[in-house]
């Protein structure tokens, strides 16, 4: 019994780290640009397809697929911001939301046109391998995904904290006008931020591609999951996204063990409502939105 619980807990934490990475992408974009990326789930699914195709065509390890996803999705996010999103950054929230709903419909439609509605089971052999650590037996795919996600979160955190560009990015997040006054290149910072956010989603998608069947309809679930995660953690907070991801991952794993599978998907929302009753801005939410 103990080993079962440990297993469930461990796999929840591992998947939670990947959820954390997804939520981090959303929260970085929000924190700097005050924009909620409604098309975040579609970007995760882009990553899943990148993982699926690279592994299928070239049979590369999943880490390489994740690196490819990072580069492709960074470029995608950068261009998307520079071409479309930047025109709406200073508009009222509801206009931004509608633009992003439009983008998400556009992307999911494109995915449907390109790959069709049928799920494609993963080509990776990784999903059948396991590692044993004492009582705990884990999927190798999960361990790799979580390790990569954890490493990336740490690197990104360090980059934002210590590098000159990270400092200017945080300055832009703190006070846009002040940043403009001291001569920060705000348009470039915004484009890079959006690129980083998209890359986080894409990498997370590529990392979980051995665990999920590639399917366009996954996008809505990931968008909502990312929303729940960031609300639990607090929108715009780096640590909040990570904590939210872990909480949701563990809660899902425990719910799947204790209740029916359908409860597994409902539990994050129930958890969200409970948290909102006590801490309406999440664990580390910003004071003013």
């Amino acid at each position, binding site marked *: 019994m103990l080993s079962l619980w440990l297993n469930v807990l461990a796999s929840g934490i591992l998947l939670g780290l990947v959820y954390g990475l997804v939520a981090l992408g959303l929260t970085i974009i929000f924190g700097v640009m005050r924009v909620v990326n409604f098309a975040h789930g579609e970007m995760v699914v882009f990553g899943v397809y990148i993982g699926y195709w690279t592994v299928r065509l070239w049979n590369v390890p999943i880490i390489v697929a994740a690196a490819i996803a990072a580069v492709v999705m960074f470029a995608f996010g950068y261009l998307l911001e520079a071409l479309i999103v930047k025109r709406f950054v200073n508009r009222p929230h509801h206009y931004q939301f509608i633009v992003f709903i439009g983008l998400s419909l556009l992307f999911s439609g494109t995915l449907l046109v390109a790959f*069709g509605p049928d799920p494609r089971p993963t080509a990776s052999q990784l999903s059948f391998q396991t590692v044993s650590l004492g009582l705990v037996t884990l999927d190798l795919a999960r361990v790799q995904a979580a390790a990569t996600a954890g490493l990336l979160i740490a690197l990104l955190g360090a980059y934002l904290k210590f590098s000159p560009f990270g400092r200017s990015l945080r300055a832009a997040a703190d006070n846009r006008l002040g940043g403009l006054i001291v001569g920060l290149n705000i348009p470039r910072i915004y484009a890079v931020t959006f690129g980083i956010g998209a890359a986080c989603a894409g990498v997370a998608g590529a990392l979980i591609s051995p665990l999920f069947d590639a399917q366009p309809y996954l996008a809505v679930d990931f968008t*909502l999951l990312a929303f729940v995660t960031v609300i639990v953690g607090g*929108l715009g907070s780096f640590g909040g996204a990570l904590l939210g991801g872990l909480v949701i991952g563990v809660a899902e794993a425990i719910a799947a063990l204790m209740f029916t599978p359908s409860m597994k998907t409902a539990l994050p929302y129930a958890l969200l409502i409970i948290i909102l009753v006590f801490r309406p801005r999440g664990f580390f939410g910003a004071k003013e939105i």
Partner: protein
Amino acid sequence: MQKKFDRGVERTRWLAGITVFAVLGLVGLLANPYVISLMTIVLLFTFLGQSWNLMLGIGGQLSIGHALFVGLGAYSVGVLYVRYGISPWVGLLTGMILAGSVGASIAWLSFRFEVRGIYFALLTIAAAEFARIMFSGWEFVGAMQGLFFPAPSGGIEISMLRGDARFYYFVALALAALGIIGTEFISRSYLGYVWRAMRDDESAARALGVRTFQHKILVISLSAAMAAAGGGVLALVQGSIFPDSIMGMGLSVDVLIGPVVGGLGTTFGPLVGSLAAIPLNHLMSALGDSLRIPGLNNITYGVVLISVVWFLPDGIWPAIVRLCKAIQAPPTAWLWHSRKVEE
């Protein structure tokens, strides 16, 4: 400064409204079954869009989970009618009360700690998704297999709200008219002024003594109750209720497309937007099916939404109004100018 409701504009608006509804009534009498069924959906979404418009366009609160209220209305009608044989009128009323109170509790939960804007919008999605998953797993309301209304007997029964397609067309038309007149009425009343003040600057409205907390709860529960009424009729028209289609994200998006495309906060916007967007969506789905391109209607909707916000941020209807004014303006301006010269 121009007066808000001057008499000429007033008369034009009434004439326009009556003409539009007379034409729509003729459509109901003369059109073929396909047009009738399409227009029924257009009119229902006009009403649903009007409820969403009331909340964002006038009340200033963004909801992306309107499917929750639509679904509650649909299930109230469906469960009471299918399981117990109770008249849909009672179901509609139950649904409106239920959705109104759920809307009020979500609003209370969110606004009591000054959580507004984006958090509130995200909260509405979360609540809608939670309800959808709960209803998908609840055997009593049909779970994933859905809830089916018995096939109509053919005759029109007003007391049970049952009838043929044409009957439902006129029900939808009445609902749309009620929605438009009601919104117009509300937006001219005391509440309308208070809500628009609150939308434009909440702190300023509060400084002037408006109890914004209570008013926000009021506007949200009113909008939710309207959406529930629309959802109840939508369920009767469709003859079946599935949690994924009546409470899913897709429905929430369908509800907001009409007012966004037509013109946020305007009285005729939802009608104009639904008239433009829903037939386009049907056309694109049909085209996508025949060409075997499954995502075509999604791509079209996406492009339409982005380009409307990009090029016509206040929607089609205000653009039409501006165009009419531009056509009318030169002669009147010239007349006024010449008279001035005479003096």
